[in-house]
């Protein structure tokens, strides 16, 4: 990819005996919203910390905005914005004081500063709140301030680590709209998330990371169609303690059916991957009836990114993995 803003080759990182990243490679194209998806502890934050020069890689080559993170970290830092997962606002400072602080850290000249502050406040919808202290802001507003601080120097590339973690639904929507606006302005966005809807709404390309390895990568739509599967979700009726057992019995029985390509337990639900709903449904119902396991609900759908995610990181069988990875 000639137009790559991020280029990672065979990146490895260990913390003591724990392997956080086990040889990942990826490329992010200019102007894209790129999503790194994975369960907690999969290595997302480690990857971002390496790209933002906060952690040194053990092995591999990492180029961000045309500079090497190991040999030229200062240049990388000046070309990126970084909004970490946890809130990093200072409770004693006002909104405006935060932005002035970051403006100075990114060496904006004084004449540009105030107009740039107005610009980012407008972008995240905080205009008019300049003189409020961060400690009196709601959680969602603090997050918006955090985002504004990461945008003050108009970075061509911004890293957002779980930007909507713990936010209200409407604030989440707001944050999504800022992210899309950034893309319109030509900013490349590197997004870490474990919300599938977020990735589906925003990302041009996603990589799913699990146990420090990239399990699969591609455009959300392509990943979905690659699965070539319908999904049948079953919920079992009955008392709680029996339900788990029954679910496992049913899962075992269904795995023996030729039409079933794989199963994944998702909470109280059992997801069954099949080639075609029409043929599979009667057989599944028959199995459950012969085992006298009562079914409460049964639904079927084309796979979403959710299914892609579960398929690659969930409890899919080892055989399944070998076939698909």
């Amino acid at each position, binding site marked *: 990819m000639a137009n790559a803003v991020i280029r990672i080759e065979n990146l490895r990182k260990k913390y003591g005996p724990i392997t956080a990243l086990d040889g990942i490679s990826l490329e992010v194209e200019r102007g894209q919203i790129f999503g790194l998806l994975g369960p907690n502890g999969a290595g997302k934050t480690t990857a971002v910390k390496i790209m933002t020069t*906060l952690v040194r890689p053990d092995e591999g080559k990492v180029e961000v905005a045309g500079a090497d993170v190991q040999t030229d970290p*200062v240049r990388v830092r000046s070309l990126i914005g970084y909004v*970490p997962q*946890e809130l*990093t606002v200072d409770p004693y400072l006002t909104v405006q004081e935060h932005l*002035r602080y970051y403006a*100075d850290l990114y*060496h904006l000249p004084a004449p540009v500063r105030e107009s740039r502050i107005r610009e980012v406040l407008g972008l995240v919808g905080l205009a008019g709140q300049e003189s409020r202290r961060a400690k009196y802001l709601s959680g969602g507003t603090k997050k918006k301030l955090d985002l504004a601080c990461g945008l003050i120097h108009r970075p061509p590339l911004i890293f957002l680590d779980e930007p909507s973690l713990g936010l209200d639904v409407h604030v989440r929507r707001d944050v999504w709209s800022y992210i899309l606006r950034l893309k319109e302005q030509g900013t490349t966005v590197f997004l870490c998330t474990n919300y599938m809807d977020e990735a589906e709404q925003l990302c041009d390309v996603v990589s799913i990371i699990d146990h420090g390895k990239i399990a699969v990568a591609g455009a959300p739509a392509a990943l979905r169609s690659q699965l070539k599967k319908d999904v049948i979700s079953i919920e079992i009726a009955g008392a709680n303690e029996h339900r788990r057992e029954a679910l496992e019995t049913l899962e075992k029985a269904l795995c023996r059916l030729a039409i079933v390509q794989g199963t994944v337990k998702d909470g109280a639900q059992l997801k069954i991957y099949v080639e075609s709903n029409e043929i599979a449904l009667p057989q599944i119902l028959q199995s459950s009836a012969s085992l006298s396991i009562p079914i409460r609900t049964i639904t079927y759908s084309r796979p979403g990114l959710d299914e892609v995610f579960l398929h690659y990181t969930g409890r899919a069988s080892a055989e399944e993995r070998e076939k698909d990875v």
Partner: protein
Amino acid sequence: MSEFVQETKAQLVRWMIHLRREPFNMAFNLLNPVILLIFMGGAFQGLARDSLRGDYRAYLLPGILALTAFGNSIAGGIPLLFDKENGFLVRLMSAPISRNSILVGRFLAININTMLQCLIMLGLGLIFGIRIAAGFGGVLALLIIGLLLGFGVTVISLILAFILHNHGDFFAIMGISALPLTFLSSAFVPIDSLPLWMRLVAWVNPMTYAIDAMRSLVLTGWDGSVLAQTAIALLVFDGAMFWFGGRILRRHLA
């Protein structure tokens, strides 16, 4: 260079806003010095009149100033530890700034705070009728000595902020350092009246040197040889701490 000034100024401005908006933290450090000056000063006034042939509070004031400077400096790293704990520092490190600006900005803020607190204690001394024998220039000299003591201690505190993992440990170290070290100096009684083991600690305690010079300024006026001795001792202490701190902090901020 101008970028470094801009970054450091931003750090300093942030800490000055904290100082303005949480004055209670500053009052907290003054608690011990104020209690000692008022109550211990009052309690020992009569007892000490005969043996010291003078005003005990005036005798005590230099020790109180040293405790003020030491206490504020040793606590000065705590906000950086909080920044480390809550992720603020990590974010700061992703900005294209010199790591030194974080240290220099905090260092300046701590010592400005130390100076203000010493001035408050001097003002309190004035209320109790203590007059500085060395005059107005002596006040300036007292502040400079307080700062020379504070510089080295500030570096220790910055080191603690980066090597400790939680602020509980930090508070514990603070609790067992400032007041005990004040007792292990010439702050409250002449050093010769201390038992031998305490005298030995007092002898290597930088507070003793700060207090000796401050005491001469408060009680007798300008004494070149004491001032020179103190200046050398404190500069050696500061130099050693800067050298040692530089080595450790460079590793922790890489």
